[in-house]
């Protein structure tokens, strides 16, 4: 088969594929449209360093970064660091949820406790968690505990506050209706207040997940022996620039994955909400 005929076959083939099913064509068009901006971005990333418009030392071309990433994946280093990071942030987040949701339910439903503790909460909530990083490092060192504790601290606040909010903003008419059916306070809480609060609580969890990654990376950069944050920082320090960018890409993908998963779960839990 000559080169000319192979090239000739390519475009009509795509058209034939698309032409066979209009649904396929629509899907292809959709995917192309949505990836266009990203593709252009990658193209710019590739071309700008190569043409010298950007210093290649500080921003290697996209292809070099991909090659570095490939090396890291094959050597298992990326997997090792990614796993360390994921384990820390998910444990911290899980613990935060386990503590903050029940606490939020209690504080939100009891007015006196709420009034008592809220001024203190406001103070803590407005203090950037990263500002307390040295405290955690001081007390807990630079091992796993301090990282997880850091993540726990940062994630707990959005979850706590959104849980409190969720409990307080339950439609009073629903409570009234349930009471008119003879429900006592305990059943009322379990069957009305809790389900009604789930969407609000989940929004808090999504926010906390974003915070947890942010804080973890910062904590790893400051003092750690493994993890993506540590890796990016170490790569920069050792002037392994393509590896550094590979690490950053991995982080971006991790964040994206977490968010997409949570949005999906939220969608499942909130099927009853009006779109």
């Amino acid at each position, binding site marked *: 088969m000559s080169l000319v005929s192979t090239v000739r076959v390519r475009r009509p083939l795509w058209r034939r594929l698309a032409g066979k099913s209009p649904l396929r064509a629509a899907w292809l068009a959709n995917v192309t449209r949505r990836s266009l901006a990203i593709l252009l971005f990658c193209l710019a990333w590739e071309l700008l360093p190569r043409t010298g418009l950007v210093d290649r030392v500080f921003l290697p071309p996209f292809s070099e970064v991909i090659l570095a990433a490939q090396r890291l994946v094959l050597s298992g280093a990326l997997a090792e660091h990614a796993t360390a990071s994921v384990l820390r942030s998910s444990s911290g987040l899980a613990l935060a949820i386990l503590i903050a949701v029940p606490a939020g339910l209690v504080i939100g439903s009891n007015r006196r406790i709420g009034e008592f503790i809220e001024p203190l909460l406001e103070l803590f909530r407005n203090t950037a968690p990263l500002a307390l990083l040295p405290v955690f490092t001081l007390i807990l060192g630079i091992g796993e505990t301090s990282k997880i504790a850091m993540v726990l601290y940062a994630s707990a606040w959005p979850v706590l506050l959104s849980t409190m909010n969720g409990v307080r903003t339950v439609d009073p008419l629903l409570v009234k*209706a349930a009471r008119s059916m003879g429900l006592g306070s305990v059943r009322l809480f379990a069957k009305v207040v809790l389900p009604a609060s789930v969407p609000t609580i989940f929004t808090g969890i999504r926010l906390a997940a974003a915070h947890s990654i942010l804080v973890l990376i910062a904590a790893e950069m400051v003092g750690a022996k493994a993890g993506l944050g540590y890796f990016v920082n170490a790569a920069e320090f050792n002037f392994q620039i393509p590896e550094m960018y590979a690490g950053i890409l991995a982080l971006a993908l991790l964040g994206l994955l977490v968010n997409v998963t949570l949005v999906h779960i939220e969608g499942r839990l909130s099927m009853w909400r009006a779109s």
Partner: protein
Amino acid sequence: MVAVVPDTPKIRFDRVTKSFPDRLAKTGTDQVIALSRVDLAVAPGEFMVLVGPSGCGKSTLLELLSGLAEPSSGTIRVDGKPIAGPGPDRGVVFQQYALFPWRTALGNVEFALEAIGLARAERVPRARHFLALVGLSGFEHRYPHQLSGGMKQRVAIARSLSSDPDILLMDEPFAALDAQTREILQDELLRIWEQTAKTILFVTHGIDEAVYLGQRVAVMSARPGRILDIVDIPLGARRGDDDLRSSPEFAQLRHHIWALLRGQVQTATRH
């Protein structure tokens, strides 16, 4: 169809007064008197309508009967016994439906059955039965946000009927619906009433609705609310094809109530 109240009425309000602390009062000792010495008796199986100007306390009266609030003085008796809080013998239907959005239509009706402690095997067929009664077979698995206003109110009615209460309390249930849906549901309600023989206390703003639905219409005064008069509605059973609302008898009754209310509405708007 004129109801005669026997010696032990189904529901009796005896000199019921309800006052609330007036939040706007400077001294804090002033009370807003919502209801003032209300006397009312409802016969078993009767369809009684409460009509009155805004703020006259008709919803408060319903709330007291449902057990969600207590009167400041006076007693409320059901079957001769004073009530002590909400109970399965009184079902409530609200103007804004009050459906639990995280539950399907079936789930909402089941909620009332869970409240009275029915087991799952009994709940589901019973809930289906009541949804069929209100004409919603096939919509069991829809969520409230997928239902129209009229359908939502039907689910609410099914839910309140499912625990088999003797009394149905309805607080302007059709006020949030468009005129056509309202008329359809009014006929539906009358049909359900004839089938189930419940005692219904129906609160409304609308005089047309009061005359169309009620066997007797209790007209309330402006705040502080009391019963001005009780009007008998001797219109007989509804026959589907007749345009009852255009008949001269209907107009007469309507005018009577309108005249009673007119002075009250003016008093109410002056407050």
